[in-house]
């Protein structure tokens, strides 16, 4: 009999997983809920709530990993403790908007329901996924709220893709990768990567902290607010065309980031901020689609770190040039790869200590805002269960600090832009202005 090369109830955490745990710890401490996100399907027709709940419960039961929690091994490497069995009891909430309001319910009512879902903490430390179904006349919104401890954005899509395949035809992938080595070798390689990351951060750091919006006062709500802008096919094509013309061929990500910096700069300027530059971490996932389908769990992202001089933010061509150059240099020096390697060294630090260490470079801050661009969805079907998908978007709670982020994400032919911020951080007028400025910069006013 051959011994299994891994333990079925243990999966070592990578350095990036540990950073996600730190961001979760910090966000939980500041807001009472962790570093969570929500993937939302806008569906045609009213989904059957009982059937949806029972099918999702049965599928979740197959994945005890989703009821695990972080622990530390005798060799000090952190790992994910996987229970022997999954729970068949999932959190599933149904809201019928058509029952209580008039039949022409607006998207604002739906958004309020979705915001309640994403801002509700998980019941206990072993719960990491919850579902919400909002139905209104002729439409449904199925939301999967998830901890970033168990999924990154594309993995959450891939998990739902797995569910859909299993539900449609009983097809379940046989090559899922759940194991991860302890990474307790090749120390010199990790130390050298750490040196390069250290140098990169020292270049980014100024004498003053980066420009940040103050976090809301403690008496303000601790939840996150969202604004969602969905560009349909023609507008999305126009944005791609504008990106090609202004930023260059296939330069949509730097174009979207520059537009976001430019829009947020106006808000900072409007409030009279003059000190500091902008620092923006950009999460990237350079796995190919087949890899995403195999590595469905935990985080498989890394980061670019952009620094934008405040005076460049007023000149869009200069801003674009700077962002493109930084992206090019960071690919050339493989900063994202070095961050993955160097972060393995950080796993020795307990979460509160690592949280403090991460703020040292930028004088008590971590970033001005978060940004990501996801160009390819991992969800393949055009339906969720029996209902046709109209749109799919994400609602991430941004780590606190900075507590604000802008996210671009493609879904079939749509391009969605999501503004996520702590309640009280922006006024209604400011959040509206950010979207107006974004539309102006993207050329689709």
């Amino acid at each position: 009999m051959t011994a299994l090369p891994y333990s079925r109830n243990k999966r070592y955490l990578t350095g990036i997983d540990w950073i996600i745990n730190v961001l979760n710890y910090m966000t939980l401490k500041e807001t009472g809920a962790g570093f969570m996100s929500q993937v939302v399907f806008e569906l045609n027709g009213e989904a059957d709530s009982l059937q949806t709940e029972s099918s999702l419960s049965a599928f979740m039961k197959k994945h005890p990993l989703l009821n695990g929690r972080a622990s530390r091994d005798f060799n000090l490497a952190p790992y994910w403790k996987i229970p022997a069995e999954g729970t068949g009891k999932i959190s599933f909430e149904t809201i019928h908007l058509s029952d209580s309001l008039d039949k022409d319910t607006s998207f604002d009512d739906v958004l309020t329901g979705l915001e309640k879902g994403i801002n509700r903490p998980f019941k206990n430390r072993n719960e990491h996924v919850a579902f919400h179904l909002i139905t209104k006349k002729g439409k449904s919104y199925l939301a999967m709220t998830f901890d970033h401890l168990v999924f990154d954005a594309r993995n959450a899509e891939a998990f739902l893709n797995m569910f859909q395949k299993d539900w449609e035809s009983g097809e379940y992938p046989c090559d899922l990768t759940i194991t991860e080595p302890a990474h307790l070798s090749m120390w010199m390689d990790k130390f050298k990567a750490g040196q390069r990351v250290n140098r990169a951060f020292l270049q980014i750091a100024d004498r003053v902290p980066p420009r940040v919006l103050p976090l809301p006062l403690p008496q303000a709500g601790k939840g996150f607010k969202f604004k969602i802008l969905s560009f349909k096919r023609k507008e999305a094509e126009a944005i791609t065309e504008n990106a090609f013309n202004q930023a260059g061929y296939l330069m949509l990500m730097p174009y979207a980031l520059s537009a976001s910096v430019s829009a947020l700069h106006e808000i900072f300027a409007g409030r009279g901020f003059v000190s500091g530059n902008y620092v923006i971490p950009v999460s990237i996932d350079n796995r190919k689609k087949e890899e995403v389908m195999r590595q469905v769990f935990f985080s498989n992202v890394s980061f670019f770190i952009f620094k934008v001089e405040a005076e460049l933010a007023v000149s869009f061509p200069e801003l674009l040039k700077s962002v493109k150059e930084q992206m090019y240099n960071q690919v050339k020096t493989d900063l994202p790869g070095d961050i993955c390697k160097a972060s393995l060294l950080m796993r020795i630090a307990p979460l509160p200590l690592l949280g403090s260490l991460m703020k040292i470079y930028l004088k008590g801050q971590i970033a001005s805002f978060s940004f990501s661009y996801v160009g390819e969805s991992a969800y393949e079907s055009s339906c969720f269960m029996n209902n046709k998908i109209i749109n799919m978007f994400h609602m991430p709670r941004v780590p606190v600090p900075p507590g604000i982020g802008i996210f671009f994400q493609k879904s079939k032919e749509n391009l969605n832009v999501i503004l996520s911020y702590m309640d009280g951080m922006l006024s209604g007028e400011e959040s509206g202005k950010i979207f107006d400025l974004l539309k102006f910069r993207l050329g689709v006013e």
Partner: protein
Amino acid sequence: MDKDSNKVIEESLILEVAAILSRDPGSIDPEIPLHEMGIDSLGFVELLVTIEKKFNIKLMESGLTRNDFRTIRSLSSKIGAMEYSR
């Protein structure tokens, strides 16, 4: 610049694009636009960095037009011409 040199550059780019997309090099058509193959901003910058390292040409600063970048074939012939003029 002869056709054989362009062919060598093209084959080298096909290998790079196949590696970026995790695909079999045989499935890469040099006439298909890169964005239709599924290359995004990050993959494209990876390709530019590879070209810089391999051919010592900084394409980001070279003033090439959008059409020059569009397919592996057009990119290969531009790289060939730039190498020849050096």
